[in-house]
C-alpha cells in the first residue's frame, strides 16, 4: 500500500470516528424527529385533500 493510500485510509478513519462519536453520544443536531414526520404528514394531507376538494 502506498503512502498516499495510507494517508487516505487514515483520513477516512478519522472522518468515520467523528460520526461514530456523534452516534455514541446520540448527539445528532437537527435530527428529524417524530414532530417533523407528523408535520410532514399533516402538510401533505392538508394540501392533497384541500386541493382535491378545490380543483379535483
Amino acid at each position: 500500500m502506498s503512502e498516499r493510500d495510507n494517508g487516505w485510509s487514515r483520513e477516512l478513519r478519522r472522518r468515520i470516528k467523528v460520526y461514530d462519536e456523534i452516534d455514541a453520544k446520540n448527539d445528532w443536531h437537527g435530527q428529524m424527529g417524530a414532530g417533523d414526520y407528523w408535520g410532514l404528514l399533516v402538510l401533505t394531507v392538508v394540501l392533497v385533500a384541500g386541493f382535491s376538494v378545490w380543483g379535483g
Partner: protein
Amino acid sequence: MTHTDTTEQQGYRDAAERGDLPLLPAERLWGFWEFTYANSALAIATWAFLIGGAVGLFVGPREGIAAIVIGNIIGVILTALPTCVPAGKYGVEQFNALRSQFGPNGSRLVYFLAVVFLTMGWLAVLSMMFGRSIDGLTALVSGGEAAPLGPKVTIAAIGAILLTWFVVAKGPTSIKFFNMVISPALVLLMGWMMYLILSHHSFGELMAMQALAPPFEDKTLNFIIAVEVNLAAGFSWWPYIGNLGRLTRNERTAFWPNIIGIFGAAALGEVVGLLGSVALGNSDPTIWMAQVGGVAVGVIALGFVAFANVTSMANILYTSVVGLRQIGTRAIRGIRWDMLLFLFCVVPLILVVFYPTMYDGFFIFLVWTSALNSALAGIGIADYFFLRRQKLDLGGLHGDPATSPYRFAGGFNPIGIVALIVGFVVYVAVFNPQTLESVPAFKYLTASLPSCFAAGLVHYVLTRIFAKGEGWGNYPRG
C-alpha cells in the same frame, strides 16, 4: 502544522466536497436559507413553463393548479426522504450512499439509468426550446411565421448544445455566475408574465377556462394524468437533490428547504406556464410568450428564455458529468474533461436532428422517468428507514469494494435490482406513458405511488428473507 499537512488536509476537504469522502458536519456550510435559495435556483428553470403547459393540455387552470400542488408535494417529499435525510445526517455523496441499496456496481447501473438518460433527454428538450425561442423571436422581429420544426430551430438547438458544452468545459465559475443572475431574473419574468395574463383575464375567467386538448372524455382520468405528470416532475429531482442536501448542516436543514425551494418554486413556475398556455391557447411557452404582450415583450421574453435554457442545460450537464467521473471506471475518469462533456452531448445532438417532435411530447419522456424514479424512492425509503433504521456504515461505503459489507454479488444487490424492475413493471402495467392507456385503478392510485410502494415492499420482504451472511448489506437483525 506544516505546509505539507495543510495542503494534504485541503486535498482531503476537496475530495470530500467532490464526494470521495463523507463531509464532516463542520465542513458543511449551508443553513436553512442557503439551501432554500440553492434549490429554488435549481427549480426555477424554463422546464417549469413546459410542464405547466403540458398540464394545460389535460385539464383547465383550476384542476391544473390542484394537480400541480398534489403531484409535486407528494413527489418531492417521497424523493427528499430517502435522498436528503441520509445526506444531511452523514454528508455522504448520494451515489456512494446508494451502494448500501444496490452495491457499488448496481449504484453505477442506477446512475446510468436515472441520471445519464434523464440528463440527455432534458438537454435535447431544452436545446429545442432554445431553438424555438430564437425562431419565435426572429419571426416576431421580421413579422413572419414561426416554424417550430424548421431548419432554423434545428441549427439553433445544435448551437445551444455546443454553447453549453463550451460554457461547462470552461469550468464551474461561469455557471455559478449565470445562476446568480438567471434565477432571480426568472422570478421577475414569471411575475411579469403573470401580471400580463391577469391584466387580460380576471382570475374567475381564468379558472373557468377549459383544457387545451383533453385526451379522454372522462374528466377524472384527465385530472389524474395531470397529477401523474406532476408526480413525475416531483420524482425527477431524485438524481440531483441528495448531493445538494449533503452540503447542509443536518437532517432538518437538508429536508425542509425542499418544501419551499423545490416544491414551492417549481409549482410557481408551472402555474405561470399553465395559465399562459391555457389563456393564450398554446401549450408551447415559446409560442404563448410571443403573443402575451406584443412584439417588444415577446422579443425580450423569448430572448431571455433562450438564454435561461443554456443556464439550465449547463447546470445539469455539469452535475451529471461530475457524477459520472465519480462513479465511473478508471477508463471514464481517464477521458479529458472537455472530451467527456462532448461525448455526453452526442445523444442530445442526435435527438435534436432526428427526433425534433420529442419537444411537443416531452411530458411522455418525463413520465417514463417516473417509472424508474418512483421505484428508486420506494426502495430508498424501505432500505434506509425500515431495514437499516437510519444507520449507514461509512467505512463500507467508502472503503475497498471487495471487502465492503455492501459488496453483495459481484457488486450488484440482486434484491435491489429485482425491486427496481418490479416497480418499473408495476408502473407500466398501471399506466402506459406512451399511449396514456391505464387500468381502472390508475384513477384512484396514480401509477407512481403503486410503483413506489411495490418496489419498496419487494425490497423489504426479499431483504428480510434472503439478505443474510457477510457482504450482503450488513442489515441489522432482530
